[in-house]
C-alpha cells in the first residue's frame, strides 16, 4: 500500500495490481472460470448467429436438409408485399412508442425529480414493467373490450362513439403501442430519473443567477446533460419496439387483415406456421441489420458516448 497506488481508481487498481505483483498470467485458472459461460456463448449465441446467416441463403422446410439458393430469399422478400406491410406496421408501432413513451417518461421523471421522490411512487410506476407482456396484453384485452370493457364504457359515457381497439385496422397498432407504453413508461421514467439525479445542482444555480427561465433551463441544461441517458433510452425503446411479438401473438394475431402483422410475428409465421425456415431466417437477418443500423445511427447522431459534463 504505497502512496503511489492510492490515487488509482478501484477499477484501475484491480487491473494493474496483479500485473506488478506477479508476472505470470492467470490464463489456466481463467479458462476454468470462463468455461461454462464460454460453452453457452459458443453454442447458443455465436454458432446460432452464423447458422442463422447461413440459413437465410437456403431453402429449408425443417424436414429435409437446407439447400443453398443464394440470395433468392432476399430477392423474394424485396418483392413481398407482406414484408413491406410488416415493415410499415412495425415502423408505425416504433414511432408511436418512441414519441409517446419518451415524452411521458420524461414528464414523469421530471415530476419525480421535482415533486415526488418517494420510492413508493417509483415502485407503483414500475409495477406494469414487471408483468409479462402476455399479462399486460390480456389485461388490456379485457379493459379495452368492445362490448363490456370499462374503457369503452367511459368513452361512451362522455358521448363519444365506442372504439374497436383490437378489431379495427386503424386502431390495431396504436392500441398495441399504447399497451407497450403503459408497460414501459415507469421503467423509462426511472432511467431518466436516475439521469436527472446525476446532474449536479450547481449547474442549475448558475443558470438561476444568469436569470434563465424554466423552459430555457430545461432546453439548455437538462436536455443536453441528460443526453447520454436519453440516447440509451431511445436505443432501448427502438430496439425493444422493433421486436414486439407477445402482445400481438395473444391479442390480434396480426389482424384484422394484416393491420398488426409486425415483423417478428411475420418471421414466426413464416418459420413455424409455414415451415419456411430459410425465408424466416432471411427476414430475421433483415431485422438484425435494421436494429444494428438504428443503434449505430442513434449513437452517431446523438453522440451517445459523450457527456457535456466532463
Amino acid at each position, binding site marked *: 500500500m504505497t502512496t503511489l497506488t492510492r490515487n488509482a481508481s*478501484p477499477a484501475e487498481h*484491480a487491473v494493474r495490481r*496483479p500485473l506488478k505483483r506477479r508476472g505470470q*498470467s*492467470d490464463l489456466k*485458472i481463467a479458462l476454468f*472460470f*470462463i468455461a*461454462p*459461460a*464460454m460453452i453457452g456463448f459458443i*453454442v*447458443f*449465441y*455465436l*454458432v446460432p*448467429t452464423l447458422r442463422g446467416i447461413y440459413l437465410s441463403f437456403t431453402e429449408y422446410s*425443417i424436414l429435409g436438409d437446407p439447400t443453398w439458393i443464394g440470395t433468392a430469399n432476399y430477392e423474394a422478400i424485396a418483392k413481398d408485399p407482406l414484408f413491406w406491410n410488416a415493415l410499415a406496421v412495425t415502423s408505425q408501432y416504433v414511432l408511436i412508442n418512441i414519441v409517446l413513451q419518451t415524452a411521458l417518461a420524461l*414528464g*414523469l421523471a421530471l*415530476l419525480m425529480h*421535482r415533486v*415526488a421522490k418517494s*420510492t413508493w*411512487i417509483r*415502485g*407503483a*410506476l414500475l409495477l406494469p414493467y*414487471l*408483468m*409479462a*407482456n402476455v*399479462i399486460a396484453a*390480456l*389485461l*388490456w384485452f*379485457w*379493459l379495452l373490450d368492445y362490448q*363490456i370493457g*370499462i374503457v369503452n*364504457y367511459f368513452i361512451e359515457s362522455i358521448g363519444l362513439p365506442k372504439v374497436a381497439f383490437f378489431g379495427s385496422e386503424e386502431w390495431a397498432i396504436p392500441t398495441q403501442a399504447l399497451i407497450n407504453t*403503459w408497460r414501459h*413508461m415507469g421503467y423509462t421514467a*426511472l*432511467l431518466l*430519473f*436516475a439521469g436527472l439525479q446525476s446532474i449536479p445542482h450547481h449547474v442549475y444555480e448558475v*443558470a*438561476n443567477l444568469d436569470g434563465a427561465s*424554466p423552459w430555457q433551463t*430545461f432546453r439548455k441544461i437538462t436536455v443536453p446533460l441528460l443526453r447520454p441517458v436519453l440516447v440509451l433510452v431511445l436505443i*432501448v425503446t427502438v*430496439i425493444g419496439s422493433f*421486436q414486439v*411479438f*407477445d402482445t400481438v401473438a*395473444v391479442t390480434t394475431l396480426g389482424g384484422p387483415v394484416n393491420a398488426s402483422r409486425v415483423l417478428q410475428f411475420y418471421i414466426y409465421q413464416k418459420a413455424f406456421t409455414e415451415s419456411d*425456415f430459410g425465408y424466416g431466417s432471411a427476414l*430475421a437477418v433483415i*431485422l438484425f441489420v435494421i436494429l444494428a443500423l438504428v443503434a449505430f445511427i442513434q449513437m452517431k447522431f446523438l453522440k451517445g458516448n459523450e457527456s457535456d459534463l466532463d
Partner: protein
Amino acid sequence: MTTAKVPAPARAAARRRPFNWRRAGAWALVVLAVAVSVLPFYWILRTALSTNGSLAGNATNLLPADFNLGAFKRVFGLQSPEEAVAEGGSGAQIDFWIYLRNSALFATITTIGAVFFSAMAAYAFARLRWRGRNLVFSLFLATMMVPPIFTALPNFLLIKNLGLLNTLAGLVLPYIFMTPFAIFFLRQFFLNMSREVEEAAMLDGAKHVRIFFQIILPNAAAPIATLALLTFIGQWNEYFWPLLVGQEESIRVLTVGLGVFKSQSPQGAPDWSGLMAATLVSALPVLILFAVFGKKIVNSIGFSGIK
C-alpha cells in the same frame, strides 16, 4: 418548474406556503400516473371474483359482480366441465398447477445457472489477468446486440435435432450457461471490490477457487441477489422461447398456458373472469417478490440501465 428560478431562501419559503396551484397540479399528475399504473391490477382481481353472466350488466361496479371463487376453481381444474360451461368457461381441461410448476422450474433453474456461471465468468473478466481478456469480453458484450428472435430460430433447430423439444432441458439450456447481461452486470461490481482481503487470503495460500467462493461471492451478495431477482422475473415472464420449445401440456409454462387458455374461450363471449383469474395466478409470484423486495428492485433499475 418555477422552483428552479427562485433563489434558495425564497424556495424554502415557497415550500412552507400552504397552497401552491402549480404544485397541486404536479401532484395531481403524479397521482394520475400512479392510478393508471396500479388500478388495472385491481380490475383483474375484481373481474376474477365476478361471474361472467353478471359482468355485462355491471360494467362499472367497483366491487366484484356476484362475488364468487368459481373462476379460480376453473383455473386450477377444480370445477367439473359442466359447472365450468355454466359459468362461462370453455369446459376444456386445463390445469394451471402444471404450468405453475413448469414456470417455477424454468425460472429457478435458469436463474441459478445463469447467475452462478455468469459470476464465474465475471470473476475471470474482472479479477484475473490473461491474454485476450478484453477481446473475449467485447465479443460477449456484442451478443447483447443480437435480437433474441435471430438466435431463437437456429437454437430451435439445435434443440429439435438434440431431441429435446418439449423437455425441461430444451427450455433451460440456452439460458443456463450465461446471459451477457448478467456477466456485464456482475463484472462492474467485481471490478470495484477491494483487493486487500483477496491479497491477504493469497498470502495465506488460498487459491482462486477458494477466493471466489469465500471472498468474492459473499462480498457481492447484494448485487448477486438483485441480479437473481431481475433474472427470475424476466424468465418468469418469458414467452417466445417457451412457446417454440414447450408446446405440450406437460411442459407448458404459465405465459404459454395463458395464451392457450385465452384461445379456448368460446366464440363471442370470452371467459373473462376465468381469464383474469388465470392472469392473476400467473402474476402472483412476481407480485409477491415485488411486495417483499420492491425497494431493491426499484433501486436496481437506475444501475442496470446506465451501469
